[in-house]
């Protein structure tokens, strides 16, 4: 398999104070392994607190992972000293969720886009400006936008500037962290088309992080579903959406409100809400909400296991083929 980026057993723990003198460790990312294939998009789906954004930032070492490895085209990012890491960053870029927050309010759009070129010695002066004009054309902005400040641009335009900035150092790989969730639906469609178009033209690889399943389904070739810091299911997008193997994925899919009435044949209404990573259950972290959990699920978590061609799922019962998806069972844990 031709992978641009490979993540191996990545962990990110935060120390949190629990009471006056006690400190507790919170596992935001808890042993995640994945690979982004060249020229493809890997979608990472999860709800709030699933650790998907932390994963994205750790992957670029914008946050320091606690353990694990990130390998970019054969180079282990974790072993690189600061200056070599900065040089490598040329090839790995990121687009953030909130475009207004991700642009320096005191820099014009042009300055923002030209900065990475100067930092990596790619272009200076007139050449840099020429290149910025080109990039603006690519992302659907005009030359007139070069001298605007972020507050003079709409949300959609701001995000286009952020995309142009990410493209400026000519990267191979871009982490897109909820790039459209702060934008209106009509603007979202424009940007999704743009991102897909850029990927085709420039041969980019994406890690696309989102809570919006339909957006991920549209963008991604492969999908990894995260719950409480772990990947609980992974597979090719169409297969995974057509036939989810983990109860959580199935519930998540069935919970998406749709605007064509009658699309959901069966809905799984989960109990409760995702637990805090601070008191994650001992067994499978989804067990307390799972309609099909058994005593075993509460006792011990299942790891990702192959589940058919190119598919992985972390579920005891699904692996054993025991689940009748049409019939929730709801087993309470023994005291």
């Amino acid at each position, binding site marked *: 398999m031709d992978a641009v980026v490979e993540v191996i057993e990545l962990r990110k723990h935060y120390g949190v104070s629990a009471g006056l003198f006690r400190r507790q460790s919170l596992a935001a990312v808890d042993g995640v392994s994945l690979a982004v294939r060249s020229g493809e998009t890997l979608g990472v789906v999860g709800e709030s607190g699933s650790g998907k954004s932390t994963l994205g930032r750790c992957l670029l070492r914008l946050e320091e992972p606690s353990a694990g490895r990130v390998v970019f085209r054969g180079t282990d990012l974790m072993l690189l000293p600061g200056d070599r890491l*900065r*040089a490598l*960053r*040329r090839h790995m870029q*990121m687009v*953030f969720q909130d475009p207004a927050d*991700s*642009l*320096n309010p005191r820099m014009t759009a042009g300055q923002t886009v030209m900065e990475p070129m100067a*930092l990596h010695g790619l272009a200076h002066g007139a050449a840099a400006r020429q290149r910025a004009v080109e990039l603006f054309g690519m992302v659907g902005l005009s030359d007139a936008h070069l001298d605007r400040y972020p507050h003079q641009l709409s949300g959609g335009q701001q995000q286009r500037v952020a995309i142009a900035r990410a493209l400026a150092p000519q990267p191979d790989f871009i982490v897109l962290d909820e790039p459209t969730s702060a934008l209106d639906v009509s603007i979202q469609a424009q940007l999704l088309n743009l991102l897909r178009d850029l990927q085709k033209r420039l041969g980019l690889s994406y890690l696309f992080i989102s809570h919006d399943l339909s957006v991920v389904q549209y963008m991604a070739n492969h999908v990894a579903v995260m719950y409480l810091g772990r990947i609980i299911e992974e597979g090719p997008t169409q297969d995974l959406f057509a036939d989810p193997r983990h109860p959580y994925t199935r519930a998540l899919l069935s919970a998406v409100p749709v605007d064509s009435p009658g699309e959901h044949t069966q809905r799984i209404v989960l109990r409760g809400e995702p637990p805090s990573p601070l008191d994650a259950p001992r067994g499978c972290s989804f067990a307390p909400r799972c309609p099909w959990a058994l005593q075993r699920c509460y006792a011990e978590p299942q790891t990702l296991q192959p589940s058919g061609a190119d598919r992985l799922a972390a579920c005891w019962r699904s692996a054993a083929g025991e689940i009748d998806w049409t019939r929730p069972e709801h087993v309470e844990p023994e005291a």
Partner: protein
Amino acid sequence: MGRLAGLSYGLRRNPITIIGLAMLGALVAVALLAPVLAPYDPYATNPAVSLRPPGPGHLFGTDTFGHDIFSRVLYGARIDLIVAAGAVGVAMVLGGLLGAVAGYTGGWLDDGIMRVMDMLQAFPNFILALGIAAALGPSLTNLIIAIGLTNLPIYARLVRSRLLTLRVSGFALAAVSVGNPPWRVLLIHLLPNSLAPVFIQATLQSGWAILQAAGLSFIGLGVRVPTPEWGVMISMGVQQLTSGHWWVSFFPGLAIMLAVISFNLVGDGLQDLLDPRRR
């Protein structure tokens, strides 16, 4: 919306700020034009006109040595504005940099810097300035240093807290991800975006600096008699208060009051103008 249009709109909704700006402008003009405006040499003594009450010849009267108080109040604006600007400048630059380093790096450096700031702030402000001024000896430069050092923690805290927020903002992460080294992230991206509250604080603090300068000079730890400094002038008139020569202390006191008020009005106005939440 143009910045100027926004500014003029903000000012129109806030006439008090305009008054403050006018007062401050007048103060600066007086300081600059003191040699032109003053009818007498502020250092010239004339025993013949000792302790004259305010009147046509001497607008604000004269003191024991026959100094013209009006001329001395005008010259005083120079010295007190220099002290205020100098002290606030020292505090802002040093405090701002310390705060920036503390807020950006975090960890033990942050702890170390902030504990020193705690120690500085543990003393009552004026007592600390008094101690520093006494240790350094009375002079204009030392006065600036003393007041600057005592006000430094305010700026350190301000910049640090702002950087703690900015450090995790999207554009800080973006700056790192496009390949900025740490010093560039701090100096080019974060610091310029944390200056608005610093300037507001500096304006407000300038009024306090004048009060402190006058206070230290009043008790003999600032500039010395017979320098035309407002605090010095008040102290020179104190003995005369009981004998009914009120004008010797009154006019420099009035000048201090007006200066402090104008700084406060402008500072409050800036706060409204620069802080979008207050619009």
